[in-house]
């Protein structure tokens, strides 16, 4: 009996607590300031800049070749068209896989894990240089 009463009141307290939690979460999620926007953009742009450095780096692969030698301003990378059927590979792939193809082949390097911060930075830079272009998955 005691136990049951205790558990009931504990449940009630937990529910009330959850309610407060939900309210406070919703306030935090909806209510962001100009300062937040600025900070988030800075976070994003710092990764874009890291990507720009890597994209122009002689040390991403092993032979001193850098991505920008063939892709100035990341042009001709077509991030808006991925995922797409990459006819030379024979299946639908993401842009990350194509980035790794370039690292392996022209750069003669080791492919990156898909969640490697370097991969995230490269994708951020490539996509940023293509900003405002409409998505066109599958396009050739």
């Amino acid at each position, binding site marked *: 009996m005691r136990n049951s009463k205790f558990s009931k009141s504990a449940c009630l307290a937990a529910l009330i607590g959850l309610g407060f939690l939900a309210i406070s979460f919703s306030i935090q999620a909806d209510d962001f300031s100009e300062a937040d926007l600025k900070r988030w953009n800075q976070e994003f742009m710092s990764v874009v800049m890291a990507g720009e450095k890597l994209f*122009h780096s002689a040390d991403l692969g*092993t*032979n*001193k*070749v850098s991505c*920008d*030698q*063939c*892709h*100035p*301003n990341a*042009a*001709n990378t*077509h991030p808006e068209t991925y995922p797409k059927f990459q006819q*030379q590979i024979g299946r639908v792939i993401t842009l990350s896989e194509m980035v790794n*193809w*370039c690292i392996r*082949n*022209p750069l003669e390097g080791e492919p990156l894990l898909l969640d490697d911060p370097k991969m995230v930075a490269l994708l951020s830079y490539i996509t940023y*240089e*293509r*900003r*405002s*272009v409409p998505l066109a998955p599958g396009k*050739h």
Partner: protein
Amino acid sequence: MNRRAFLKATGTGLMASAFPISLVKLAFGGQDPSRDFTFGYISDAHIQQIKGTQFVRNWDMGLIRAVREANLLTPRPDFFMFGGDLAQLGKKEELDHGLEIMSNLRGKVRYVIGEHDYYLDLGKYWQDKISPLYYSFDHKGVHFVVLNSILTYHKWTYETWPSPMDRMLAMARLDNPQGSPFMVGDQQIAWLKKDLAKINQNTPVVVFSHSPIQKIFKPWNFWTQDAEKVQALLKPFEKATVIYGHVHQIQYNQIGNITFQAVMATAWPWPYPETYSQSASCLPKITVPMNRADPFFERDATGWQFVDMNSGKTAMHYQLPDNPNRTVIFDAATGKPKDVKYQDYIRRIPPQTHF
């Protein structure tokens, strides 16, 4: 020799495959066939040192292939041009290695300097070992001029960078926002004026430069800042042609009396400027682009072409790997070059759409 006979002669054996060189034919409209001649054009090899005796295999192979195949040309070209950017970072090791590969080429070679050859030591090793930076010569009735078109502002060159290699790396990066526009410069323009003053205006004049002597896209230096000054000096000539490297792609244009033709690179192709969506470009409207490159085929979007200058007007014949060959003739009716197959928009094919 007429064009048909020439094609027949060059279309045999290994020439049937596509070569990353440009063979140029100068013909004189049948007026005096004994004066017809050809010359080959190899450009933008970008030989790049990894360390010691190791160099980037991909770029080596492009130049090696061009030289080997140029050696099979029949009839033999009278001479060859190298269009600049023999090295990637202007190092002696890179220039020496490039020259070693070029030394296998049978025939006289003349050189145009590119920015990748220049900005480490400002052309010192180039002038000691390879060539003057600008000069002219005459060959079978044609006046040829080689320009050093990759100079830039004095301050950028001499007062901006902590070391010569910093300067070289800054100029080697095509999309560098801290870059600086190419120019021929007043000193060389004064020399050119004097050089052309003694040439009869009926004489065909062919100018070789590394950068386009026209303004296409400044952010990547598909651009010469004082292009108009050079164009003005070519204006009096009935037959003027500018052949340039640097852009690693098919481009052609007509400005007044001057026909412009780009040559392919042996190293790698570059995107057309319009594919960079954040900046406007002025690719010549009459250029029908080359097919988009297939990265899985290392030598794709390299190629070779020869120029037929019947009556002093250029017709460019592009031989392209894995692609249908292209022919761009001079259309007397419009006074502009046109692709005989693809010039009309409705006749273009999907790979020619760059985006």
